[in-house]
């Protein structure tokens, strides 16, 4: 059903993955191609494909002429209502920013929609490159309704958007993230110090304080440095109408018949 070589490849790859994450340390060399070929009885090409896969994934790094080594661990950023600066400080890193734009503009339809505004209403717009210990990590565009924070840019771009909201009595308390992945475009690649085409994690966030939509933001995080961590809990039971309807009863939310 499947080419045998695919399964062999997966076996070598998963063996290396376990080795890298549980037995070797950052900077350690991995076993030689020859050793791996012998151990698994596979061709050099299969070993190379397995190593390539982990290089692409960011677990291994190739150094020209020296060999292949365990790459530094990626930071696990919790998906939660905290900001880039807070998360970096929590890890003992110093956050900083380069402001690309800080201006008041008329909301385009998509921004208006995300902020519960009408198109054309005024919003503050901030476009920044975010650094951790001086290294570029993410690009962030954010918008917030002008009427929530009059004079926001009067003393230049604020260091903390959430901080400015709190100062005005708006405590961000819930939101939604959309997480996507794509190759980085050439402009963002320049700003992040990435090769064009490397993967980035794209996060689109709406932040609310109670019933007020406060901030809308779009960020691109270097996927070679970050992973996201998301806690999961079981969904609450679904509500179904009490009176029996004329339709055939639907299966209960048991999954036994489904492809899990």
């Amino acid at each position, binding site marked *: 059903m499947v080419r045998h070589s695919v399964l062999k490849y997966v076996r070598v790859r998963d063996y290396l993955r376990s080795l890298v994450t549980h037995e070797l340390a950052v900077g350690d060399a991995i076993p030689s191609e020859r050793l791996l070929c012998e151990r698994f009885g596979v061709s050099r090409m299969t070993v190379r494909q397995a190593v390539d896969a982990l290089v692409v994934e960011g677990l291994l790094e190739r150094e020209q002429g020296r060999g292949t080594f365990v790459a530094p661990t990626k930071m696990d950023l919790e998906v939660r209502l905290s900001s880039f600066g807070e998360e970096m400080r929590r890890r003992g890193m110093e956050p900083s920013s380069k402001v690309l734009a800080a201006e008041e503009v008329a909301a385009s339809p998509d921004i208006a929609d995300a902020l519960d505004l009408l198109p054309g209403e005024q919003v503050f717009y901030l476009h920044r490159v975010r650094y951790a210990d001086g290294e570029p990590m993410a690009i962030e565009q954010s918008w917030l309704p002008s009427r929530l924070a009059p004079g926001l840019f009067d003393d230049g771009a604020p260091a903390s958007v959430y901080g400015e909201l709190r100062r005005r009595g708006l405590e961000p308390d819930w939101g*939604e993230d959309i997480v996507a992945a794509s190759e980085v475009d050439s402009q963002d690649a320049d700003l992040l110090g990435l090769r064009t085409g490397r993967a980035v994690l794209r996060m689109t966030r709406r932040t609310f304080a109670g019933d007020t939509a406060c901030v809308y933001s779009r960020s691109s995080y270097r996927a070679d440095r970050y992973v996201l961590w998301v806690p999961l809990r079981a969904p609450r*039971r*679904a*509500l179904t*109408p009490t009176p029996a*309807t004329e339709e055939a009863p639907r299966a209960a*939310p048991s999954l036994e018949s489904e492809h899990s």
Partner: protein
Amino acid sequence: MTDQAALILAALGGVANIIDIEPCTTRLRSEVRDPARVDVPALRAAGAHGVMISGHVVQVVVGPSVDTLATDLEELM
């Protein structure tokens, strides 16, 4: 808040249009019989911060009050 629950239920096309409603942290996710009977402007007017319709599934962004709303909705269903 029961008012909001009633408005939302009506905007979803009423109990007869509901297959189920599931509270999801910040959204009500409902499977409906006829998506054409969902009134999006009425949902926004009832305080929804967004409405996504895809096939028979309607998602209504309501925030953390979703738990209270679900309890209120249960009584109306």
